């Protein structure tokens, strides 16, 4: 039996905003049922790659294949039933409750005039449970802390109930305990058979949680593979211009990055 081809593949993408080219000939294969972390310095094209993978940005050249079919050929709702993206910027109407917001993740499963089915309620309840915000369900989003709010947004993405979940910097602006909480949620998703792709900034957390790392610089993939093969001293130098020592994490054995002491 030949293994099924990966569900999400990008082939030879050229990505552009207006006249500014962010990436040319970018190809990425997202391994199924794994936690893929995209790493790279600021403005290296990580978010742009995620936007292209999710269909928010149409590539100027190349194509994204979802389950073997070009993404651009799929109707919006059909795509959204297979793949969810939590972008970096979103807005919530003032005063919306947590449950209402999470429920909006169900859009792709609803028909225009017949909304609020039992399966919607179940999916919303499950998403609230999975992200540990069930007890906040009736609270207003704007009353919550940053960490709670971020988990609510992730709950909304989970309520979409897609096998593929893409998240653009889901842990940025969170303190360390909240980052760990969010990453544990994502880890559980992968354990239950979903494919997760996230842009992260913290190298050590990426090394601990990722099954697969995609390291980018200037719109190109510099290295791909498991953290042990990708988070290495030479790679940190070439991707981040960072002098560092990589040691085994005393708790997990995953690579642990200790930046060189560059103080004068």
């Amino acid at each position, binding site marked *: 039996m030949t293994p099924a081809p990966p569900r999400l593949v990008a082939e030879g993408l050229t990505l552009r905003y207006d006249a500014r080219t962010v990436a040319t000939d970018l190809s990425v294969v997202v391994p199924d049922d794994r936690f893929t972390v995209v790493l790279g310095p600021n403005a290296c094209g990580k978010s742009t790659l995620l936007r292209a993978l999710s269909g928010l940005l149409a590539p100027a050249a190349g194509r994204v294949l979802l389950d073997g079919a070009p993404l651009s050929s799929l109707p919006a709702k059909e795509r959204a039933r297979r793949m969810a*993206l939590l972008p970096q910027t979103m807005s919530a109407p003032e005063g919306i409750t947590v449950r209402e917001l999470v*429920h909006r993740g169900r859009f792709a499963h609803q028909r225009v005039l017949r*909304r609020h089915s039992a399966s919607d309620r179940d999916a919303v309840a499950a998403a609230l449970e999975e992200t540990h915000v069930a007890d906040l369900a009736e609270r207003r989003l704007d009353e919550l802390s940053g960490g709670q709010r971020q988990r609510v947004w992730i709950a909304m993405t989970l309520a979409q109930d897609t096998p593929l979940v893409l998240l653009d910097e889901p842990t940025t602006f969170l303190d360390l305990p909240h980052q760990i909480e969010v990453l544990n949620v994502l880890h559980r998703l992968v354990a239950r058979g979903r494919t997760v792709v996230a842009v992260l900034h913290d190298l050590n957390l990426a090394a601990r949680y990722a099954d697969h790392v995609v390291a980018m610089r200037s719109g190109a993939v510099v290295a791909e593979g498991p953290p042990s093969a990708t988070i290495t001293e030479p790679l940190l130098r070439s991707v981040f211009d960072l002098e560092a020592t990589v040691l085994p994490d005393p708790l997990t054995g995953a690579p642990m990055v200790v930046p060189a002491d560059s103080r004068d």
Partner: protein
Amino acid sequence: MSRPLLLGSQRAHVGVDRRELAVCAVLLVAALGLGFVGLWAGDFPVTPGEVAGALLGAPFPAVEPIVYTVVVEWHLPRVVAALVFGAALAASGAIFQTITRNPLASPDVMGLANGSFTGMLLGLVLLGGAWAGIMAGALVGGLVTAGLVYVLALRDGLRDFRFIVVGIGVSAFLAALNSWILLRIDVETALFASAWGAGTLNNATAGAVWPAASVLVVLLLLLPWGVASLRQLELGDDLARSTGLALDRHRAALLLLAVALVSAVTTVAGPIAFVALAAPQIARRLVRSPGIPLAASCCTGAVLLLGADLVAQHVVPLTVPVGVVTVVIGGAYLTWLLRREMRTDR
């Protein structure tokens, strides 16, 4: 769990937003009350019983033909126009404000009012003042302006802020153009045009109102199909798309619906200011909903315009265009609400 109601399906977990339903019910009662006043009040004395008789026939006593003429042929079209036009303007404003995620966006702020006026003036000057020419001019003027703003604002997708700023710019240009035309034409025509330009229901005769109101009711019945898309649009363009909304198509369709609503009103009544801007915001505060409630906006707009028209006809000493009153009433109420909110927010 209750089954969801089409128009009121705001709050996900209960299906029906009970508060929006209650607000709509209260507003509809107010609309009926004001509507009765509108049918009854006027220079020709009729009794409330005669109004009921003229409107409903048996079991009420039969009325004189002149009473029937006054109530059904003169007053009724104007009352219906106020209710339907008010609802349509409010719906149009609700769509604009939700799509742009900006409470200051509305068709009148973004140039449609001035564009319709430009078209009306051109129709008046070039086609010699026939009603058909004026109405066609207003309709074409509004639609061309909407298309112009859309095309000018569209570059690499539609960005909310650019959309509003381009609208305001086009609006200012057209206002200057309108002033120039008004200064060039003779005084009598200019006076007539100015009254129309302020927004008035004085021209709401049966012949003009029934076709426009029919078109508007059909357009308003399309709104339930847009509610779900509007709710997703509140989350921002990225999230609306990633949760499955075909953004460009739905947004264009909703804007087209909003423009059609406001154009049909303007064609008969001229650019009535402030209803589209204020009604959705008033409704949102009455319902205390996170986004703009579409059904409650329509009810608010209907009550607002009918109330304003009654004031314009019967309360102020000389009859003024209703647009003057909507600015005063709507503006005062919105200011009061905003002030109250600023206080409670602290």
